[in-house]
């Protein structure tokens, strides 16, 4: 079970309290009705599904109930950082500390 830091509660809590809510930073158009078919397709259907760093939304469902964003490595499952909804996509990611090589 993963530990996830809720940026609102400012606490690491067990995964059971959270629910994943799909990829982050996909903006809904202010002029939704006027979107082209192609743009709607990109908005609604196309997801990056990367091997590596993903920006995704989580909800602290059984806690403060807030949606927030997270950066996670899909290979190691490690959370690199979490941040509040509405904050810009971070450009400089912190290095994960415990990827150590023994001896």
């Amino acid at each position, binding site marked *: 079970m993963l530990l996830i830091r809720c940026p609102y509660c400012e606490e690491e809590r067990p995964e059971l309290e959270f629910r994943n809510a799909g990829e982050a930073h996909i903006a809904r158009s202010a002029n939704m009705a006027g979107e082209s078919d192609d743009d709607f397709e990109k908005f609604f259907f196309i997801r990056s599904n990367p091997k590596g760093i993903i920006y995704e939304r989580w909800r602290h469902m059984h806690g403060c109930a807030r949606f927030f964003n997270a950066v996670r490595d899909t290979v190691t499952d490690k959370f690199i950082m979490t941040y509040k*909804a509405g904050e810009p996509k971070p450009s400089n990611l912190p290095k994960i500390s415990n990827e150590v090589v023994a001896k």
Partner: protein
Amino acid sequence: MSGAFRIPGAGRLKQAKTARFNFDGQAYTGIEGDTLASALLANGVHLVGRSFKYHRPRGILSAGAEEPNALVEIKRDAARKTPNVRATVQELYDGLEAQSQNRWPSLSFDVGAVNDIASPLFSAGFYYKTFMWPKAAWKSLYEPKIRAAAGLGVSPDQPDPDHYSSRYGHCDVLVLGGGAAGIAAALAAAETGVRVILADEQAEFGGSLRFETGAGIDGQDGFAWAQAAIAELQGMDNVRVLSRTTAFGYYAQNFVGLVERVSDHLSTPGHDLPRERLWQVRAKRVVLASGAIERHMVFADNDRPGIMLAGAARTYLNHYGVAVGRQVGVYTANDSAYAAAIDLKKAGVQVAAIVDLRDHPTGPVIDEARALGIEVNFGRAVIRAGGKLRVSSMTVQPKNGGGERTIPVDAILMSAGWTPSVHLFSQSRGKVAFNDETKRFVPGTYAQDCVSVGACNGTDGLSATIDEAYAAGEKAAKDTGAKTVKSNRPKVDASESWSRGMLGAAPGAGPDTTVKAFVDFQNDVTAKDIRQAVHEGMRSIEHVKRFTTNGMATDQGKTSNMHGLAIAAEELGKPIPEVGLTTFRAPYTPVTFGAIVSHARGPLFDPTRKTAIHPWAEAQGAVFEDVGQWKRAWYFPKAGEDMHAAVDRECVAVRKTAGLFDASTLGKIEVVGPDAAKFMELLYTNPWEKLEPGRCRYGIMLREDGFIYDDGVVGRLAPDRFHVTTTTGGAPRVMNHMEDYLQTEFPHLNVWLTSITEQWAVIAVQGPKSRDIIAPLVEGIDMSDEALPHMSVREGKICGVPTRLFRMSFTGERGFEVNVPADYGQAVWEALWAEGQKHDAAAYGTEAMHVLRAEKGYIIVGQDTDGTVTPNDAGLDWAVGKKKADFVGIRGMARPDLVAKGRKQLVGLKTKDPKVVLEEGAQIVEDPKQAIPMKMIGHVTSSYWSENCGRSIALALVAGGRDRMGDTLYVPMPNGVIEVEVSSMVFFDETGGRLNG
């Protein structure tokens, strides 16, 4: 005397308490503190099971969790039968009953052993090859036969009467393994004051100190030191010591699963005791001290009972005081077996000979063995074992060929070396590295905050182990914030040390095709099978493993993986690291479902939700149905009524007089705030800004893709307050959907959302007499049609308690939904029921509710829609605000395929024969005479007998349905084709006059 092979004065068990036990109907005596294995060996019993595939007689290989052979059934009573228990792990208790497995009619005469003679048929990959054809025979013939013949124990067929418990644990330093290394690490961490958990799978701590007579620490014998250290740790407030506890899984972020066996070792476990306890521990640092597992020698017939690991024989002697034979042979490629020979010899057991595969080994143990007069042979191999139900001899030959010599023995102790237990490290996603010099895989790259110490890290010798472990314990404590370090490092006075050994098959293992030199005992995989897999084209070790099943049994190849890998590598002509190790997966040893499920079974498996009115319905004899987690009254049968009769009566009563229905499970959300109307505009297709307070509207919610997501009646209580209802099943996801948009897409809107499903009980009163029933109980609300028209809502009082009184209808009759605070739900229901009796009203359940709404063509989201239905498809275009600039789904709804002609549309269906009721889900075709597979143009979504219409009615999704009004279509069924006519969805009161009737 507790067995003829118990050596007086040897071992650590107190002779005081004897324990009687029973194996295959035969009574024996052991000592408390024995394992079942040591007690059997003390009685000279080596034959304990039959093997999986060849039904070969099998004995006891090990003295621990790695045991592949000695699997038995332990039986307490008819329901408490545990198959596949390792006799080497099961502690003896007075009255224990064990039975051998996988044999018929008896252990010594087993009919299935014919497989052994016919073994060429059962070579590697035989399941894949032999039973390929004909395909149909697989299910009917091959699989059941194979399952019956192979397989290990038999599962109990009664519910498990035991209970299990579950705990979360948190600590700074979790130490897994309680041998010398684990104890040293735990001491170092514990002395700093940080929170420590130390767990070991055995009943007693000490690990290999149980058999290493040459170990001395802090002036004591190694095992005595271990006991003293554990007592010290147990006395510390910051330490939890868990014995009989196996760490079976290492998960993300230092989350470790452990199972504590609480009462399996007790003769009469108290009812308050759980059988097992699951620990889910989150640790800041983990110290892995899981030790090493000895490997066997791979030679012909190396599975005969009496042939065992040298370290195991030492454990049986030095800990349990049991000699595993009277005339033992030793076969080794490594020093450690010498110590076993020396210990046994000193205890008075005859050691026939030591056969060492190495050419010129030197060292103190070899000298000591010689000094004791033990015959030592170098550069020789045991090429086969004699005997069947018990080993009777070993045949020795120079390893490069030459004259054979057969030596009579009643046991063979073997050691090919020790394999570091990297299972948990590997589960933590760490990567192992191959040490070419010592031929061992050891921890390489770490992926989590853990460290390996001692034998599991490839560290040899007690001194080096304790130094390394103590330092690691101190560092782990410091890393988690410990300030003071005491450094009371234990001092090692005497130590045993060995390493190396061999991997793969010894010279006696083949290449003769009939030789059975076992690599994996539990799955009956021989050296020949692995070679054959390579010859048949398997290149990856993962393929070799699956083809031969090497390492895939319940022991997960603890003794066999490295041998299998080495043989495959040799055959492939590649170095071992290039062939690679198979992945280790949880669980380390088998875990019961009971421990995982714990209390979450029966009524506690899933929460049950009951409405405030539930007790009344129960008292009335209602039959309930499950709707999600809710229990809903399905129908209220009177004496002698079946479901059909009850539902017909309920449906007729509602339209004739009135009916009362518990609608409390309906999802309810309050949308409040200055921007509440704006928010509603965005979340629902309908317009809301102009809806006057006091009025209601049927709302449709879409997903962004334009498909119907939910629906429900919404009442506007005030300009800034909406009372939204959702479907029963949809309440949580609608709330989530609303919160998602409010928090992330429309955060500028000043709105609060509150789930009020549980706060309000809802009593629907429907039918021509509904107002007459309610009115006498209501205060402060004008109930006239002018003041309270259809689709309106008022706040006031009923029976003296607050109510939100909706005038609305899901039946097509004049109707009301009385919302009252849930605590008053049953009282108000009873008051309304009493009034209802004056008007011949009936209580009706969900089945009648479904029929009544279908008679009116009202849809149920999730039944008549399936996530691919647009408002237009459902005939609900009228509920979509045409002038709105935006709402969720506005763009998706306009996608080309969603506005194309020929989409499936919701319509009514009338069977030509009114008595025939269609099956929900039945497919619809245009031409029933066409060839199969027919072109299906739709399906039935709802179908009922309607007593009010005097005929069957149905709703269906049909391609281009609204252009087919009056057309005849067909529903092909197994018993013939049913003719139907496409109709309006409204079957009753088409003008809607009864809403005010």
